[in-house]
């Protein structure tokens, strides 16, 4: 409605454009540049075309890392989303208790990634770590440096501890936005607790959950610092996720070309998964009756 025909206003977005170029577009183009070249030293490079991409897609260790990555992301989502919703539903709605619980829930989110890794590294040690020691005391031979299963479970547990709060907070704000009249109507309709959740709370949470799931998916897909600190990707390769493979390739082995190609593949996978997920959810909200879409 309120249109002003002053085209000079476009200049105002220039700083933003420069910032985006600096932070995203230029680094990305550098990566694209590397991905199609073989770099020997700063003065010697060859154009390779799609060679690195083909090689990367056929690399069994990367394929395994990708599978592990999907397994990890899906596992933590499967735990964090229901748990987060559950916590949000249990959080008090008003009074000092609400503020207190809110602070407690937020705490894990404030801790940096590598610190989380260090905390858990100590926490799980068999000699001085509370968890490691306790588990051994009850008779379980807990060892994340030798048992892939232990390592895997510990990393999942750590991620759940670190990030469930995010889902819980998003859901909490979503729940607070539901008008009281909905609950009153449901009580009057004699709806059970489950029906209230299924037909009022969950539908109203869809939007925040979409954001939550996307954030957590992207986050977990890029997980690096915590397993690096906690397990170093081992034992063997059992907790080596994509980003770590990439880092090793790019910095330790200095395979810049393959690493760049791999980064782009990595980026496209995340983009694709997010897009498919988002489209699916948004389509679910539409009316299935032809021509009946008013929304």
């Amino acid at each position, binding site marked *: 409605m309120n249109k002003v025909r002053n085209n000079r206003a476009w200049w105002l977005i220039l700083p933003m454009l420069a910032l985006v170029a600096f932070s995203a577009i230029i680094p990305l183009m550098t990566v694209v540049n590397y991905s199609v070249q073989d770099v020997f030293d700063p003065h010697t490079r060859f154009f390779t075309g799609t060679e690195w991409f083909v090689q990367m897609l056929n690399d069994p260790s990367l394929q395994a890392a990708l599978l592990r990555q999907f397994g990890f992301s899906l596992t933590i989502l499967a735990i964090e989303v229901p748990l987060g919703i559950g916590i949000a539903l249990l959080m008090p709605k008003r009074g000092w208790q609400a503020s207190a619980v809110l602070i407690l829930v937020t705490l894990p989110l404030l801790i940096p990634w590598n610190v989380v890794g260090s905390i858990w590294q100590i926490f799980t040690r068999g000699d001085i770590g509370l968890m490691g020691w306790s588990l051994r005391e009850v008779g379980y031979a807990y060892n994340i440096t030798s048992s892939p299963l232990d390592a895997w479970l510990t990393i999942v547990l750590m991620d759940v501890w670190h990030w469930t709060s995010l889902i819980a907070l998003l859901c909490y704000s979503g729940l607070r936005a539901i*008008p009281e009249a909905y609950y009153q*109507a449901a*009580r009057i309709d004699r709806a059970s607790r489950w029906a209230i959740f299924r*037909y009022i709370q969950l*539908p109203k949470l869809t939007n925040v959950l979409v954001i939550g799931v996307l954030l957590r998916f992207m986050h977990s897909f890029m997980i690096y610092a915590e397993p690096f600190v906690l397990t170093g990707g081992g034992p063997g390769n059992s907790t080596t996720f994509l980003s770590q493979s990439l880092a090793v390739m790019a910095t330790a082995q200095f395979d810049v070309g393959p690493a760049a190609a791999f980064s782009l593949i990595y980026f496209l996978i995340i983009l694709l998964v997010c897009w498919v997920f988002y489209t699916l959810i948004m389509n679910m909200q539409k009316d299935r009756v032809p021509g009946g879409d008013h929304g």
Partner: protein
Amino acid sequence: MAEITLSQLAHSYQAQPSGEADYAIRRMDHVWEEGGAYALLGPSGCGKSTLLNIISGLLAPSSGEVLFNGRRVNELPPEERNIAQVFQFPVVYDTMTVYDNLAFPLRNVKTPEETVRQRVMEVADSLDLVAQLDRKARNLTADEKQKVSMGRGLVRDDVTAILFDEPLTVIDPQLKFKLRRKLKEIHQRFAVTMIYVTHDQLEASTFADRIAVMYDGQIVQFGTPQELFERPTHTFVGYFIGSPGMNFMSMALQGEGADGEEGDELVADGQSLVLSQAWQQAVRKALAQTDNVKLGIRPEFVELAVEMVDEEGDDRVEAFLTMVVEHSQDLGTYAIFTLQRDDLRLKARVEEGHPLPFDVAPGTEVRVRFPAQRFGLYVDEYRWEVEA
């Protein structure tokens, strides 16, 4: 269905109410009879929504009882009171279809699917929702959503009453009429007790057989639309019902009596008014009790004449005055004149066909007559009956 009784009911949102002013609902007794169409009418903040929520059980009263068919229900939660409520903003279950929305209250109590189908179809038919049954509720228009929330109340055959909390607030003006008619039809067809909360006199009088006018936490009058108009029992009803509201003139005694103590001339806002014996006595009696005595008359009943006639002998006329037209509002089919004489200001409604033109010049002198049977005497804001 049930008769709903409010007995010695009072409510305050404060834990320790210190005085009258802290009460959203002042102590009251009221009976809503079975099967009636009622309205609860009042300005915003008068306590009408509070009262509604007390009836439905969403709010527990500070004191007093709510009785359904004589049985105390204070302790029963809304789901056990068998009440249906339609809210100001449409409440539908977004992800369900219209059919599932309507079936929801029945399925919640494990009604056989056969019965559900039959009831839903019957209600959908009477609400003109059959074509929308397979649509997702989120994609409906506001008026369709309101019909769905009403329908969820109607599908239940055990429902005691349906409560409406300003249900037409978000409906387009052009559709309001259709929905008002639908409500009326539904009441005739299902004969269920309905209580309709609104601040709009048109909505209240169109829907309800009897209207409870609420003011300042109290029901000040409970009557038919006609009674509210013709015999308001409280000055607020006189003001609130009708456009413009009732004229009120403050009565006082003026001048010096024979003993030099008490005035003996009756004045209305400073204008001496000659009243009949019966009215004079009533006003004087009221003034002996309180200073707050008013004479009320609706603008519709104020009679205007251009020329003087001898009103003294006309026993149809209670009093008369000469006043000046301050300004007139030509409202098309009628006009509202604002009349003035010193401190006294009155409004009079002039119909088509009246000798005075709608665009009468300000300053025109007119003869104002007050018909006896249209006068009301208000003492401390409540009406006193006067035997003429």
